[in-house]
């Protein structure tokens, strides 16, 4: 692979991720609307929102760190997208791997946390405290699953993992070989997406949307963009680990959207957990499932 090709991939991969993410947001809102027997937003609504937010005339910054936080939140995901192999493009997946990716996607969260902290709003700080607590909750099963998958495939390299699954068709997919882990992973990804009942850190009625309390204009817009990336990343990691990655774009898209659709179909009928209950639930079921799955994989 020559350098120019690589650079093109690095530029294109985030763009694709963003586009897919936009539609995932739309799908999410549509699912919510359908469950609530509403029409729901029009096709380009996520785009309208983002454009409008960026186009705000006056915007409030609480200081440089506030700005940098948003830049890190968006930029970190842009970087992360280049480490996720998609059909036809591998980016720098060979140079990072599953483990590094899991830590790289903490960078945007940390950036966001910094930005929110600078806002000097206790609601935001509480939101971040809760978000970090939620991260502590869902990352525990998540790393167990990463361990299991990495042990099963004998590699940490996402390209290898994808190749391994694609070699034998559906029968060799992670989900077929490691069903317990796949279920645990779905659970943990659900918690990661932070929708009901796990939306402890947004909690609009309680802490006024937590981290987003002081975010307006392009700051909020940045977070919307980040959400698009986040949905794509979570889904793509899952697909890569358990659903054979992307053989070609149509199948890949189906898998990506399906994976997001499953938890979202459940989300909007739930109320919200309390923080400690998120810990209790996530540390119990997906962790137990994950450990059982790892045990099965290793024996």
């Amino acid at each position, binding site marked *: 692979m020559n350098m120019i090709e690589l650079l093109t991939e690095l530029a294109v991969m985030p763009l694709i991720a963003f586009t897919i993410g936009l539609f995932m947001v739309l799908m999410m809102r549509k699912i919510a609307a359908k469950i*609530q027997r509403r029409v729901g937003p029009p096709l380009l609504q996520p785009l309208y929102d983002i454009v409008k*937010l960026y*186009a705000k005339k006056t915007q409030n910054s609480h200081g440089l760190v506030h700005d940098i936080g948003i830049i890190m939140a968006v930029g970190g995901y842009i970087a992360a997208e280049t480490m996720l192999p998609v059909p036809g493009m591998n980016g720098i997946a060979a140079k990072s791997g599953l483990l590094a990716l899991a830590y790289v996607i903490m960078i945007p969260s940390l950036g966001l946390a910094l930005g929110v902290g600078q806002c000097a709003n206790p609601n935001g700080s509480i939101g971040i405290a809760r978000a970090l607590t939620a991260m502590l909750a869902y990352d525990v099963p998540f790393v167990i699953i990463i361990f299991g998958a990495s042990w099963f495939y004998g590699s940490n390299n996402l390209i290898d993992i994808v190749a391994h699954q694609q070699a034998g068709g559906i029968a060799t997919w992670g989900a077929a070989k490691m069903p317990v882990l796949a279920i645990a992973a779905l659970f943990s990804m659900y918690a990661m997406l932070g929708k009901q009942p796990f939306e402890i850190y947004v909690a609009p009625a309680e802490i006024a949307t937590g981290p987003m309390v002081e975010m307006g204009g392009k700051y909020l817009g940045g977070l919307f963009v980040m959400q698009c990336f986040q949905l794509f990343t979570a889904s793509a990691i899952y697909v890569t680990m358990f659903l054979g990655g992307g053989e070609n774009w149509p199948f890949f898209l189906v898998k990506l959207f399906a994976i997001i659709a499953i938890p979202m179909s459940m989300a909007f009928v739930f109320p919200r957990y309390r923080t400690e209950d998120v810990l209790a639930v996530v540390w119990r079921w997906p962790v137990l499932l994950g450990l059982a799955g790892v045990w099965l994989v290793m024996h």
Partner: protein
Amino acid sequence: MSTLKNIPVVSHEKPSGGTGNLLANVFDELMAFCRSRSLFMLHYCTGCGAIELPPAMTSRFDMERLGIQPMVTPRQADILLVTGYVSTKTLKRIILTYEQMNSPKYVIGICSCTVNGGMYWQSYATAKKLNDYLPVDMYIAGCMPRPEAVIHGLRELMENIKKGESDNWRDYYRRYDHYLGNQQRLFGENWQTPTDIIGEARHYDLMGPETLGPHTALLEQHQTPLKPFEMTLGLADLPVRKDEPR
């Protein structure tokens, strides 16, 4: 001042299709379109009118299909919905909330109370006309207006935004002295919000003929400074001065 048309609206948008860069015009149109199709609203539920909003949002009327959805804090919101009578005490909060919103921002007064005080006309503690204190873009009269009326009003606003007609937020900057005067009359001359409207007007070049005036002068006398904490290195102490008290 009994009709909407009499609310002073000063448009400074260039008429569409006029001079200037075509591409820029298209861009502006696009922005206006997006603004009109994506409205986050903050409902400041001061009175009984708030009860009409849930039906407007939920499955019967579903605002979201118009791109309108509720938001929680002023920073995120585009529309400030004031849904009922406004007492003096509440008005302070409404003004604070309005000033904390990011422009372009729109104020909608719902119910008769926001128009003229409604049934509280004789109350000593109720602000009668909201547009004395804030630039109201749209009144939805009624006691209370039905959800259809609310939706209708919102659609009107969307049209106005798309056409570039609804930009009363500029008026607040351009005639800040006027609004501030009315506010001071009600709250006393010590009145101050933490938002630096004049500074914003300067920063975004939104100054108008009446931005500054006697009332802003009065404000400056009583104002506690609101200069943001700029990041400072403060490394003037190189080399360390011996005489300096530490």
